[in-house]
């Protein structure tokens, strides 16, 4: 049959829109700010063969892990397992790749009795019943990290599976909002079922499938053309994670080897540290996802994701390594390596794509958390969570951006001083740019920030800061950015430098100075 370019375009944009509508449904009906404000979620509409028809993300780092969940379910239980009206959940780190908080909810889509695809979403549930609330910075096995679910039906033939819901309820610390978030994901899946159903009702399976094939082919062709433009060869880059959060003296190495051959690219991640004791491990699908982010940033940043994306890319991961964790490795801080992996793919390809790449950025979340039993402002227990912004790498033609959220997060914003001080017993005495922290170069790396807190009550401080062993490197002779630096009571008698801390007691009047890293410079500085 012949398919009109008009129909293809209308179906292409309808699929993108369907994913947007799913994402909107999830974000607007979720119960916790992690999802509706932190946008810690992603949605995908998949075809019968688990290929992406449309995807929409809050975070940029879930490229490929949602389809792993439907595929795994089918591999395990056979293709007859799908029934109309069922909705499933899965949060197994070794399948989904990330920590147990990331729960993927997915539903098969039937049209006239035929399975035509899947609607899936992943969202961060605030607590899975781990040994510490919300997750631990010092877990050493996944069994300390909470409830782990393989493929599990939460809705059967349109009715909630109350046995399973009770089981979840019993295991997590905040059951009310957790089930609320789960139901938001069910609503999101139903929006996907509805939108894809409308499309099939309007055009029929044959036309939708023909359009799908054409859309995938367009994307694949475009990516192949862009890879073909890169000189063939082997490219390599190495970086180090500071430590695994348990043994603070041992850095963990990651080497990325990229091979470009014609229209094909291989990213080899096998040469990295074995899975660690601390919670820095991730499942293979997340390592693949991170490599895809690096690839996408260079090859096709503006193109919508679909089943044609990443076809020319092969990512190799070693089972039992930190990036291909096996049971019972702990995975709570799975994202520690992601920002670096993304930067390493880019660094490796720098000689081949000097104008597209950028020098490295400051790293990832740089988390500061205050918690206490009593907030004098409200008389209630409290817990805060802030991600700190930093400097990005320079590129050919421009300095890197200053004070920008990391590559792993997306639309996350810093907390205004007026909000922090109103809600929590801390005062922010300084929030400014960390001048000179960006690496020098023909184009300078962006600067990090300095944020200084004074405690107004005794409380517990937790920190998860990274990238001091290999701070943001420069490119083509540009210098590295300054590493991060966190100091408790700077200049005072109890001065102490630290980057990681798990519930460290701090006292009223103590000062905490947090300095995020700068980005790398690009090109040799003329001075």
């Amino acid at each position: 049959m012949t398919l009109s370019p008009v129909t293809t375009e209308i179906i292409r944009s309808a699929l993108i829109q369907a994913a947007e509508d799913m994402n909107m449904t999830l974000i607007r009906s979720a119960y916790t700010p992690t999802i509706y404000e932190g946008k810690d979620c992603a949605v995908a509409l998949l075809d019968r063969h688990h290929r992406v028809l449309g995807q929409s993300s809050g975070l940029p780092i879930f490229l490929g892990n949602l389809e792993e969940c439907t595929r795994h379910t089918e591999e395990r239980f056979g293709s007859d397992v799908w029934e109309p009206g069922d909705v499933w959940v899965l949060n197994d780190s070794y399948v989904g790749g990330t920590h147990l908080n990331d729960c993927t909810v997915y539903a098969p889509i039937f049209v006239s009795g035929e399975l035509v695809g899947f609607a899936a979403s992943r969202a961060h549930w605030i607590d899975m019943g781990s040994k510490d609330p919300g997750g631990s910075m010092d877990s050493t096995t996944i069994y300390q990290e909470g409830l782990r679910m393989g493929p599990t039906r939460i809705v059967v033939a349109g009715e909630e599976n109350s046995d399973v819901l009770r089981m979840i309820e019993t295991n997590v610390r905040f059951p009310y909002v957790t089930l609320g978030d789960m139901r938001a994901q069910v609503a999101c899946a139903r929006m996907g079922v509805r939108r894809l159903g409308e499309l099939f009702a309007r055009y029929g399976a044959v036309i939708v499938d023909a359009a799908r094939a054409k859309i995938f082919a367009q994307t694949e062709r475009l990516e192949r053309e862009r890879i073909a433009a890169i000189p063939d060869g082997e490219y390599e880059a190495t970086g180090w994670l500071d430590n695994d959060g348990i043994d603070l003296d041992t850095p963990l190495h990651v080497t990325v080897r990229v091979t470009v051959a014609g229209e094909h690219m291989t990213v080899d991640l096998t040469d990295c540290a074995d899975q660690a004791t601390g919670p820095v491990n991730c499942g293979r699908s997340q390592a693949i996802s991170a490599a895809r982010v690096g690839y996408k940033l260079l090859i096709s940043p503006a193109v919508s994701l679909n089943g044609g994306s990443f076809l020319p890319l092969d990512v190799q991961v070693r089972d039992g390594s930190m990036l291909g964790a096996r049971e019972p490795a702990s995975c709570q801080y799975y994202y520690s390596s992601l920002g670096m992996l993304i930067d390493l793919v880019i660094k490796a390809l720098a000689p081949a794509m000097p104008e597209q790449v950028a020098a490295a950025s400051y790293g990832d979340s740089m988390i500061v958390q205050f918690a206490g039993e009593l907030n004098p402002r409200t008389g209630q227990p409290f817990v805060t969570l802030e991600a700190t912004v930093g400097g990005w790498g320079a590129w050919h033609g421009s300095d890197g951006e200053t004070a920008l959220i990391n590559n792993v997060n997306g639309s996350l914003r810093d907390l205004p001083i007026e909000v922090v001080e109103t809600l929590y017993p801390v005062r922010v005495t300084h929030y400014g740019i960390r001048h000179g922290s960006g690496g020098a170069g023909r184009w300078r790396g962006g600067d990090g920030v300095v944020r200084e807190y004074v405690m107004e009550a005794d409380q517990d401080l937790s920190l998860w800061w990274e990238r001091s062993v290999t701070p943001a490197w420069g490119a083509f002779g540009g210098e590295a950015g300054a590493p991060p630096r966190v100091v408790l009571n700077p200049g005072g008698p109890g001065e102490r430098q630290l980057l990681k801390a798990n519930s460290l007691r701090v006292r009223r009047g103590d000062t905490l100075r947090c300095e995020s890293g700068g980005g790398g410079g690009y090109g040799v500085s003329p001075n």
Partner: protein
Amino acid sequence: MTYRVAMDIGGTFTDVVSCDETSGRMSAGKVLTTPDDLARGVFDALAGVRLPLSDVGFFVHGTTQGLNALLERRGANVLIMTSEGIGDVYRIARGNRSRLFDLHYRKQAPLVPRDDIVEVGGRFDASGAELEPLDEDAVRLVAKRVREEGFDAVAVCLLFAYLDGSHEQRAGRILREELGDEALVVLSHEVAPEWREYERTSTTVLEAYTGPSVHRYLDKIEDRFSGKGLDVPVHVMQSSGGLVNADFARRHPLQTLLSGPVGGTMGGVAVSRLLDRPNVICIDMGGTSFDVSLVLDHRPDVSPDGEVEGFPLLMPLVNLHTVGAGGGSLAYAEGGALRVGPESAGAAPGPACYGRGGTRPTVTDANCVLGRVDPESFAGGMNLDVTAARAAVAGLAGDLGMDTVELASGICDVGNAKMAQAIRTLTVEHGREPGQFALLAFGGAGPMHAAFIAQEIGVTEVVVPRFPGAFSAWGMLEADVRRDFSMQFFATNADLDTTALATAFRTLHGQATEALAEQGIAVDRRRIGHGIDMRYESQDYTLTVPLTDADDVTAPGFLADIQQRFAEEHEKRYGHATPGAPVQFVALRTTGHGLVERVDAQYGAAAAEESESVVRDVVFDGAPWPTTIVPRTALPAGSELAGPAIVHEETSTTVVPPGARLRVDDNEFLIMTLAARPELEAHA
């Protein structure tokens, strides 16, 4: 004779709608905008539509003066004065990114460079207690610098000024003392008395940046009227959809930033009341862009804050969603598929059919090929070049291996699908499906596409108002005076002090009363409403819960009652609620409406013109259909038509596809009824 006159000054055209105060008769006209001097343009436009100045009894307009200054970055030279320790906050700008995959991401360049930001000592804490007095010597040094370096304006934004404005006021007094009229001084707690220092600074800077040019512009207009010895109340549309007089707009110029396009939404509110349709989707399609906004329960969808050009604005704004899809949107091939927009042929060369040298096909060219525009009567008779349109579409059709007419239909279909998606995004965001709305179409190209867009989203009723090409101006004539007030008021359900709450509302009520009096609104025409911004603990965004006249915030049941109503609002907007969960009170909002006195508009006074309708082939669904082509002037109230038909008028063309029915109601609005789409029904 006295006229009430509204004027929407757009980039290319200025639309004028007037209403004769004695007879209620309305008329509309269109003249070219004079971008080099908008104030002169106002008077040229009045002359252009033959309205003698002495007959103007009430004048309202939407001005792009401030917005143009911002878009073209030729605003005032501003210096920022802020608190010690946070001079970089304006540059950090909360650190978020708007694109997920962009290695070369740069934030919007700030309007004020870091060198022009000065920190001064003085600090309050979060309870409003003074920790450190204002460093007045530092303020005097700032004044010295402003004078020496010739800054036009100073934006003062100090931490927690929304709780206690005394430091800002003191700094303002010193600056004014030292500088006199040399520089505009803008205080953050006066512009936006709300928390979040970056957003408040951004708002204050925008006011300082755009203020002086709006100021000069309004001065000129009033001078010109009074130069003729006329005392004409000059009003300006605000971004919130309400009117204010020029004197207020001069003092608070920022409120007029988005003053033009919101006229359409306010027209939508008036139409929703006239037709008793509470929920209306307003679509405004012109040459380069497509604006969607909503009327929900007869009220405009107004957000308490928003963003312009990437700069946050803590000020009520009508929620307008814009996509690059207009008559001038270019069609092109990419990877063997057809794409339409967002690139536009603009005014020059414009669509191929304008005959100004354009050769690439646009949406208007596609409509031209399909016979959906009348080449002789389009846009007041610009004589479209059908041959050029056909050649442009045929060229692309060849590249895509398609037939010319098939491609022309396809260009419209892709464009319509894109616009339908923009609408769906907005309604899904509100937790509603578009099928529950009526679609109100205006702008030159809106009524041409409305039926197809409606079918795409499952809407069955399309309304084309009078003067669709000048509808924003019509809407301004229908709008009322509005003044907004807010106050930060942080409390939790556990510690809410209702006596303090009542005192705060009394203050706001007093401010609103005073403001309406200042706008010349008589006591019996004032309507003052209150609302509370609330959220669940740990949320960031808030919902505004309106209070009713019957509410007594100090009554014993109030706390439980307001929490219940918050839960209901939450349920409505987000599809769920958590009754009993801890809530926070964040800000208080008071809106004063002043009902403008106006005579009811009269339509249908003029007898319908005797005019021949003709029948001509127009393409629908790929096939030619014999179609009735009729001028709107030949359709008096009560007329009915069955599609396919095309109704043309000076500034717009309404397309009625096969299967649709059209009737003309008592207001002389065109009401089109469409068949429901079965597959949307099935899932509804």
